């Protein structure tokens, strides 16, 4: 019988020798070209990392392919980044160019390093989840195709972190991304009373609703939804399959911008809603790609060097962001949930 609780493999056994030898002894890094990092250690050793964008949803063929490359150029070592890129770890400087050539030849995108657009962190969507309001991989592919040029550059004002999540659970860091693409539902759940009676724990279901929209209905041994109070978060559906939330006609996408995670310069911050709804228009979601490009380009054209999207907007003011982008401002942009108060403009000083 197999072991239980063996835990993951020991990382120490999976590190390339150059890393084992220089572990904790890295001195500085440079970006010799787009997609490539050069790390130099205290004792002068040099490691090149060649970063390659992946669709994340990959076949074992893909994995075997990159393994073959890593065998040829990296002595059989590679890693993945926190944004699902592949990093080829090249300790032999002479192999960097040949690797890049082969990667280019095979169509692997090299980039995502420095002040570039990196890969879009994303989720399951229609590929595997039960609550999505949209697909994830499809939109990511469409947007990355569209913004492709920025992946291979290093001269953006700052790093550009785009994230995508297919429902309000936000599996990822959509809530703190420069640009966030978010699947949203727009209609209340339809209660399947049969299913409720077949084993939903009603008190837990009632408690799950952030706005108190679900009331127990003891007579029916079910629940009723106060549709006026529901804002379609889908949390009840997560709790119970009886709360059918998918609605092909009304599900779609919202865009949030200006979040960040790093503590560099400014504190980490949430992304903020700028486009409440765009339709699901597979396979290429042209409304979404256009909206994202438009925001990114407005940033490119207006931000100062070193300004993340949110830093740029906070400098010019959100009122100016809306006028610059010509995105219409609506009541949907105004917070009305628990922490809304801190968003209210409690000053008479503002721009137009």
């Amino acid at each position, binding site marked *: 019988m197999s072991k239980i609780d063996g835990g993951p493999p020991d990382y120490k056994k999976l590190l390339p020798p150059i890393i084992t030898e220089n572990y904790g002894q890295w001195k500085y890094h440079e970006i010799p070209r787009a997609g490539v990092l050069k790390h130099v250690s205290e004792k002068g050793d040099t490691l090149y990392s060649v970063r390659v964008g992946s669709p994340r949803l990959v076949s074992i063929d893909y994995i075997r392919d990159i393994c073959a490359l890593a065998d040829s150029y990296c002595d059989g070592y590679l890693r993945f*980044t926190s944004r699902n890129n592949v990093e080829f*770890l090249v300790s032999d400087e002479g192999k960097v160019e040949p690797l890049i050539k082969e990667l280019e030849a095979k169509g692997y995108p090299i980039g995502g390093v420095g002040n570039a657009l990196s890969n879009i962190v994303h989720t399951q969507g*229609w590929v595997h989840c039960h609550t999505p309001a949209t697909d994830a991989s499809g939109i990511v592919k*469409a947007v990355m195709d569209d913004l492709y040029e920025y992946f291979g550059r290093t001269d953006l004002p700052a790093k550009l972190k785009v994230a995508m999540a297919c429902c309000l659970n936000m599996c990822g860091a959509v809530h703190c991304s420069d640009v966030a693409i978010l699947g949203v539902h727009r209609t209340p759940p339809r209660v399947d009373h049969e299913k409720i009676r077949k084993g939903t724990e009603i008190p837990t279901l009632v408690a799950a609703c952030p706005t108190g929209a679900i009331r127990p209905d003891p007579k029916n041994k079910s629940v009723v939804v106060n549709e006026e109070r529901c804002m379609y978060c889908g*949390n009840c559906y997560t709790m119970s399959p009886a709360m059918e939330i998918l609605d092909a006609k009304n599900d779609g996408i919202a865009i949030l911008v200006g979040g960040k995670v790093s503590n560099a310069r400014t504190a980490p911050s949430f992304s903020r809603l700028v486009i409440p709804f765009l339709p699901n228009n597979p396979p290429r979601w042209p409304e979404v790609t256009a909206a994202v490009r438009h925001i990114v380009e407005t940033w490119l054209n207006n931000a100062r060097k070193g300004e993340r999207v949110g830093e740029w907007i906070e400098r010019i003011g959100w009122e100016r962001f809306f006028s610059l982008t010509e995105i219409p401002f609506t009541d949907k942009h105004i917070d009305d949930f628990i922490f809304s108060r801190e968003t209210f403009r409690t000053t008479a000083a503002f721009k137009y």
Partner: protein
Amino acid sequence: MPDKKTPKLDELEHGPWPSFVTEIKKAAVRNESAKDLLNLLERSYDDKRGHWKHGGIVGVRGYGGGVIGRYTDLPEEYPHVAEFHTMRVNAPSAWFYKTETLRTLCDIWEKHGSGLTNVHGSTGDLIFLGMKTEELQTTYDELSDAGFDLGGSGSCLRSPSCCVGPARCESACYDTLDVCYDLTSSYQDELHRPMWPYKFKFKMSGCANDCVAAIARADCSIIGTWRDSIRIDQDQVKAYAESGLDIQGMVCDKCPTRALKYDHEKKELHVIAEDCSRCMHCINVMPKAVRPGKEKGATILLGGKSTIVQSAFLSWVIVPFMKMEPPYTELKEMVAKIWDWWDENGKTRERLGELIYRMGMTKFLREVGLPPVPQMVFRPRANPYVFWPQDEIVK
């Protein structure tokens, strides 16, 4: 089964970015469930809705999680995805692999599943995407033999993850890979057998750049820092100046605390040590010239999570500075107390951050025995609604 047409998805094979559709097609060449996935997905592209039902409880012996059960709502039409579960494989620290290890994983997956993966999931697991119930146990057994184990799912500890840290980064202030591995190994029970009000996530970043986005996503974020002052190499400052870097504009003026003074004449950079908040900015821009101090450790922050239910929370400071040395006793003792408190007070599906918010930080700190320090807050309370403990008032 005859090949169905997937015109919509085919569209997504065009364009420069590598295509997941191409990947599914590759797997579909030798795997029926991958083929059905493709067709079902095309169906979703037509219908503009997902076709997956709520997952039932499926799993492997001895484990309470690690598998996400999944069934299509159209099993007749897409029989090979009637069951299509994913298995979360706990990845090695910082996602370093030998190719031979990856190949072993591919071989196992070729035998037992769809041949499709997510490398990696958002929490950091390697995801085996789509398998039948009957394959779960054997897949696990072979994974285990190959030195792997399951990651977390459900109301338990989730697979901790960490940035590349000291393995390849000059900014790392502690050994993120080791802490990640040590905690994962120490908390196998918490990881594998759901026992709490809700999920709990650890993420480790070696410095305030936070390259695993811990602060946004982890109930406990461990972020590297230092206690003394940044170190400046004036020769390198000169080199940057001569290379044309606008040190005043790009470094000093963007220092959030204005702790840096640049002497244009001498081409020297000086820091007012006590004003520096260790934000990493100057180090990021001039990695050759500026680096963290020598007295290194980590800031512990709690409470990060995404939007559902009470709103998203960013982790906030609980311990400004903690030494990070194996066996990480101080950290683990603190974590034990926090988990106990959460377990005792948390409602079902209440994350730690929401619980602390609901009960009040004061109560949390007192009951968990942590000393209040001003670093925990941006600013003190604006309301005067202070609770006075019995022993501090006059009887």
